[in-house]
């Protein structure tokens, strides 16, 4: 109850967008009016508002609304798994580096900095080129591409928290290092990481679009917002709605997720509690 009252207008909007996305992703096959890959050549380039094709149809006459709904599932699942993987890898390495310092830190940091120096998308491209284009490959590739940022933020946060006196107090009490880390350091890292994770969620959707646009993403004919953009590129003059509609989906998702992230950060700050 009091969590809901503390969300603020941004949190509500963000929450609503996130909820809508989850519903689309889960129940997409029941909601979508058509099969997303069913061809209807008579409806090629049907404008939005055409009977039977609410948001129009693409160059093969596939229903845009259905493709967007199915694409939401693909894009969001990829984003969720990628962020989870990046967080898991990044958090582990970041905490180890930040808490134990010394050689552990030096090795992890040098590797991490080299990874950061390498453009993330290029790294993902490389991995995809080797493994081949599929949703799983994309998650793995993007997960590794995004992990270094998490490592860096986690390491910096941990380093500032481990200097706090309550962490020293925990050691003086006699807690083992693992317990100190788990009980006092980790929970206090969560807030900045939540913001990072939601921001990253948006970046992953963009990266997925970019990779799909380059033809290395989700292989057609399966729809994702990214490859819809890519496929629509030749028709930008004649049927701009083909680009605009998935573009709107991506923008609204990014905005919503970011708003939700800010709200979550506020909610998780103990100082905001009355």
């Amino acid at each position: 109850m009091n969590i809901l009252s503390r969300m603020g207008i941004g949190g509500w909007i963000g929450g609503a967008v996130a909820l809508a996305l989850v519903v689309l992703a889960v129940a997409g096959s029941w909601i979508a009016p058509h099969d997303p890959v069913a061809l209807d050549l008579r409806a090629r380039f049907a404008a939005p508002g055409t009977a039977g094709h609410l948001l129009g149809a693409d160059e093969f006459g596939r229903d845009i609304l259905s493709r967007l709904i199915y694409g939401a599932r693909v894009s969001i699942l990829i984003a969720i798994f990628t962020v989870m993987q990046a967080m898991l890898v990044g958090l582990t390495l970041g905490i180890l580096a930040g808490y134990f310092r010394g050689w552990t830190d030096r090795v992890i940091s040098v590797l991490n900095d080299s990874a950061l120096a390498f453009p993330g998308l290029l790294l993902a491209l490389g991995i995809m080129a080797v493994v081949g284009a599929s949703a799983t490959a994309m998650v793995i590739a993007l997960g590794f591409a995004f992990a270094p940022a998490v490592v860096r933020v986690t390491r910096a946060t941990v380093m500032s928290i481990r200097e706090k006196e309550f962490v020293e107090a925990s050691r003086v009490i006699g807690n083992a290092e693992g317990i100190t880390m788990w009980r006092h350091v980790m929970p206090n890292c969560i807030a900045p990481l939540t913001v990072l994770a939601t921001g990253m969620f948006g970046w992953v959707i963009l990266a997925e679009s970019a990779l799909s646009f380059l033809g290395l993403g989700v292989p057609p004919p399966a729809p994702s917002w990214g490859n819809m953009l890519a496929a629509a590129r030749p028709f930008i003059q004649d049927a701009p709605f083909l680009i605009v509609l998935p573009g709107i989906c991506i923008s609204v998702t990014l905005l919503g997720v970011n708003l939700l992230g800010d709200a979550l950060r506020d909610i998780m700050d103990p100082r905001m509690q009355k």
Partner: protein
Amino acid sequence: MTLLSVQDLTVEAGAAQVQVVRRLSFDLEPGKILALVGESGSGKTMAARSILGLMPPQLKLAAGRLEFDGIDLAALPAKELSRIRGARIGMIFQEPMTSLNPALPIGRQMEEALRLHLGLSRAECRRKIVTMLERIKMPDPQACLRAYPHEFSGGMRQRIMIASVMLTKPALLIADEPTTALDTLIQHDVLNLMTELAAENGTAVLLISHDLGMVARYAEDVVVMKNGEAVERGKTRTVLATPSHPYTQKLVDALPRRSEGGDRDETPRKPLVQLDAVRVAYPGPTRLIGKSEPKEVVHGVDLTIAEGETLGLVGASGSGKTTIGRAIVGLETVSGGGIRFRGQPIDLTDPATRSDVQIIFQDPFSSLDPRQRIAEIIGEPLKLDRQLTVRARRDRVRDVCDEVGLPQEFLSRLPHQLSGGQRQRVAIARAIVRCPAFVVADEPVSALDMTVQKQILALIRELQDRHGFGCLFISHDLGAVEQVADRVAVIEAGNIVEVGRRDDIFDRPQADYTKRLLDAAMLLSRSFAGAAPAPASA
């Protein structure tokens, strides 16, 4: 003639219109020093800032007149006000570490006000600045012009700050806790410098402070504030010697003085913690290859703390006193010599010893995990005792909570919902919950208000009488040490210069450094309490 006349000043906060300052009035004559005294949250800083129009955006001037040299400051447009600010009214802030711009050399920062208000040329500015730097006895003023703030210590920075404010010879200087962040010895220097410069230029000073001892020494008139209101005003001497308002009496009473009854029993006790030629060195900055020279901060310190006794460890910041305390509880690695606990080399990996040696940190705002509730914080050490049931643990937490004077309902709260004093009680409760034999108290009261300090010191002493733990009480504040210590050790730059019984150190100091320290502290916190007829002790 009055220079600054404040009448019925009222400052309100936010939409709720909470009155932060309520109908405050005072007059300040040219060249005089007036002090606004009060504890944190009394509204003294906001009152002073409202004079310059420097209030945070959520505060607003609700009512009252602010007349400076015949000009109504409250009615002045922002542009006109900024012409007065810096030229005719100067301000010194509390935190010298952040009030100078770290990216600009000192010379550039100092000439800013001169060029802005007096329109002097660069060369003239330089000449004036160098003269001023010579006046405040900066070594090598020319080099100082090109130096950056981080190259100076806190005390030096505050001197530079004062110098740059005084360059324009303002008619009024507002000094907001100008020395709170500094050591006793340096406080003394900085305040002397400030009052000297003010006297030379005929500048009136509005001094804002929580420190009655300091006010007694420097201010002619005083206004005592509580919850935004002036509760008492008058000549400093009269107000402090014969305080009429109960709150002023409480403040005067909280001035540190020697605990009565003198020493506790003199029977020799068994040594509990012994330091033998302890050295501590911090590693130098890490390089890619190899190690740089470590920096030694404690150079072979011998100390003994007996069971049940309090040893006060006094020194300036950077003297290594905190490092010694941290070394005993195992937060720093000893690089030479040894520490013995009950005669044996201390082994903190042994759980029994670990729970026997505890520490209370200086800052109760960072020593408690912001995400844990008070009950969890106090109960956490008990989790390591596997034999305790959940119920026994809860009972013990309640008992300790009573012992440190915390109401039970606080147990379900989070640290940020408590005041500084209450948080420090929580930290103390956590330290004593497993009945340790030895407690290091690292500046446990220096972040607290005077009246709260007194309560916490009394609490520490009371707990010690009851449980008989030995205590190393680390402080830069001689007043606090005088109140709680049985014996005192004075440390200077990593070396112990003097150890002795409390009364010997305070009444018959031997070492030069101790004498200087006492001198400065005497002026600040005891000048007045000593001269005044002792108020009825509560």
